[in-house]
């Protein structure tokens, strides 16, 4: 086991190693050995990889791997107060928005809400088929007594998508203007998109109380904002160089260029981003219900917890239906913009 002791002796580090030797907690290997029985020690014959735990055996001054995870936790807890002090007031409006939207969607009577939603989808999509489909789905939800939860989910999706656009578009614009900004932000976006969603729930739970709506609001936005940012950046970068040159040649200021040329021409891409953001925030709603988000997700969760198969599946299909109508409406809006420009 103690193959590396000679190394530390040879380097003359023995004294430093033993300086404040205490009874260290068990290493990973010891822990495993203990659970697997006594003969495990024999397996470590040969040359083990000089991991932190192995080197700790040889030299007590070197930390164990569990110190690393523990250190991270301690570090986070140490700055938690400060983080909370900054983040709490900044994110408070999110709680208000979510609670407000939930209140409106829950308390508005169905005979007002359903026509209103149908009207909105008509104005956004300008498509009869899509509007009719929305109407059917909404009536279906009401019929199977899922109207309330569907409205809660919709309220959350609207607020989170809206905020994602409000924050994401300016970030995307900034990114498109500077290659340095792009280089810095892209890895962050990759991280947000690939990090398992449960993982960033962990620090959020430490920071905020689970009874606050902003907890799941932040989780959803962090996850769903990525496509808006990416596609705003991409859309602006893809704007025809010749048109930009014309804008410059006629003496546009950079603000005029942004509002008259870049944003309108990037609009189809931005809208494609918004469509994806809607889909992703809907996907997050189920996970968010783990941290007290109301809506269809709660029923899915109940299906899993209590093994109520029917409840879970109906709620799951309900989410699919919501996804489909949101997708169709936003895509219809997108193709309307496209058609106007390329019409013959």
């Amino acid at each position, binding site marked *: 086991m103690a193959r590396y002791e000679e190394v530390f002796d040879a380097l003359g580090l023995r004294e430093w190693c033993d300086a404040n030797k205490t009874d260290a907690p068990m290493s990973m290997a010891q822990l495993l050995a203990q659970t697997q029985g006594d003969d495990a020690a024999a397996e470590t014959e040969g040359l083990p990889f000089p991991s932190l735990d192995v080197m700790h055996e040889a030299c007590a001054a070197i930390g164990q791997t569990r110190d690393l995870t523990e250190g991270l936790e301690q570090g986070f807890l140490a700055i938690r107060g400060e983080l909370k002090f900054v983040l709490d007031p900044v994110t408070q409006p999110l709680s208000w928005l979510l609670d407000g939207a939930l209140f409106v969607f829950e308390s508005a009577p169905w005979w007002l809400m359903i026509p209103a939603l149908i009207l909105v989808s008509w104005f956004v999509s300008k498509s009869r088929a899509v509007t009719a489909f929305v109407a059917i789905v909404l009536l279906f939800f009401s019929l199977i007594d899922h109207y309330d939860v569907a409205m809660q989910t919709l309220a959350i999706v609207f607020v989170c998508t809206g905020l994602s656009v409000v924050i994401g578009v300016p970030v995307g614009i900034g990114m498109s203007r500077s290659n340095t900004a792009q280089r810095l932000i892209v890895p962050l976006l990759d991280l947000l998109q690939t990090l398992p969603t449960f993982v960033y729930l962990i620090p959020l739970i430490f920071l905020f109380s689970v009874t606050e709506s902003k907890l799941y609001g932040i989780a959803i936005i962090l996850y769903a904002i990525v496509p808006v940012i990416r596609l705003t950046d991409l859309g602006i970068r893809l704007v*025809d160089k*010749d*048109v930009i*040159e*014309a804008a*410059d*040649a*006629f*003496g*546009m*200021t950079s603000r*005029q260029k942004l509002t*008259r*040329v870049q944003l*309108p*021409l990037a*609009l189809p891409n931005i809208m494609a981003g918004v469509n994806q953001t809607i889909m992703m925030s809907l996907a997050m709603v189920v996970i968010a219900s783990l941290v007290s988000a109301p809506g269809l997700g709660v029923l899915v969760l109940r299906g899993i917890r209590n093994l109520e198969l029917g409840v879970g599946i109906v709620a799951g299909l309900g989410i699919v239906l919501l996804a489909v109508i949101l997708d169709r409406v936003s895509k219809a809006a997108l193709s309307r913009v496209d058609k*106007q*420009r*390329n*019409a*013959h």
Partner: protein
Amino acid sequence: MTQDTPAQPKVSIRGLFKIFGPTDTEMVELVQNGMDKATLLEKHSHVLGLQDINVDMQAGEITVIMGLSGSGKSTLIRHLNRLIEPTAGEILVDGQDIMGLDAAKLRRLRQEKMAMVFQKFALLPHKTVLQNAEMPLSVRGVDTATQTTEARKWLKRVGLEGFEERFPAQLSGGMQQRVGIARALTANTDIMLMDEAFSALDPLIRTDMQDLLLELQKELEKTIIFITHDLDEALKLADHLVILKDGAIVQQGEPQHILLNPCDPYIEDFVSDINRARVLRVRSVMSALTAEQFDGDIEAGSTLERLISMSDGDTNHVYRVMQDGEAVGQLDMKDLVKALVPRSSSNEGARVA
């Protein structure tokens, strides 16, 4: 001839160099000492865009810059409104060095002094034809009523009345470029920059557009800088012709003069394929009045083609050349025939007064 220079050129380029690369200013000296484009690229990884350009562009004239693809024409014209910054040199507009302008003044120069027409039209696809034509004025913050009247006026002038509410994608290439021209005219600038404005169009439509441009120019007398890679187009439009090769000027001057006196094998090559009878004018090949008897009168500005058909191909004829009702010279059909052959294949020297 037209070589008498007025007091001040409208646009003047002095000692302009453009080198693309991170340490371009350090490369100027190498180029000045005679390093060529290929060596510069190979040894220092810098692209030689333009070298030692000196051109005067007179007010009210069409200056045509001609050269093969990659010779630096687009680079040159973009220096005039500083879409590209020079490595060294001066650009004077109305006597003022525009290199000294700050961002705000440069924007005003672009808004009020120079309009540009692009090879690929570069219209705003999400705006209507009318809104596109209004753009230069709306950028300046002119009131909307004026914007609309001006835009409508110029759209009508280029033959697009009735198309105001269409979108660019609904128009043919030729019509889109008419919008491009209307947009530049709405800007109401003295100077118009046209970068291969007609190169993307079909030959017949291109001829129409050239005629339109000449007709507008007769009326408006703008200072036009026109880029082309097509010699026929250059000869048709140019008052002053500048020939570029590998970023350097090979020859510049009155187009007829260049045609009759190419100073470089490169240009001889260029001009050898041209239909000279259609391009050359009587005044460029006439000689001093000596004969007593003439077979007829011909205007100095007529093409040789015209005279050939007038003479019915008889090479014994001698014609009197008239300008504004006065006899200014004579043209022997034998001289005419010699002028039709490029200099490289005959020994015919310059006949230009």
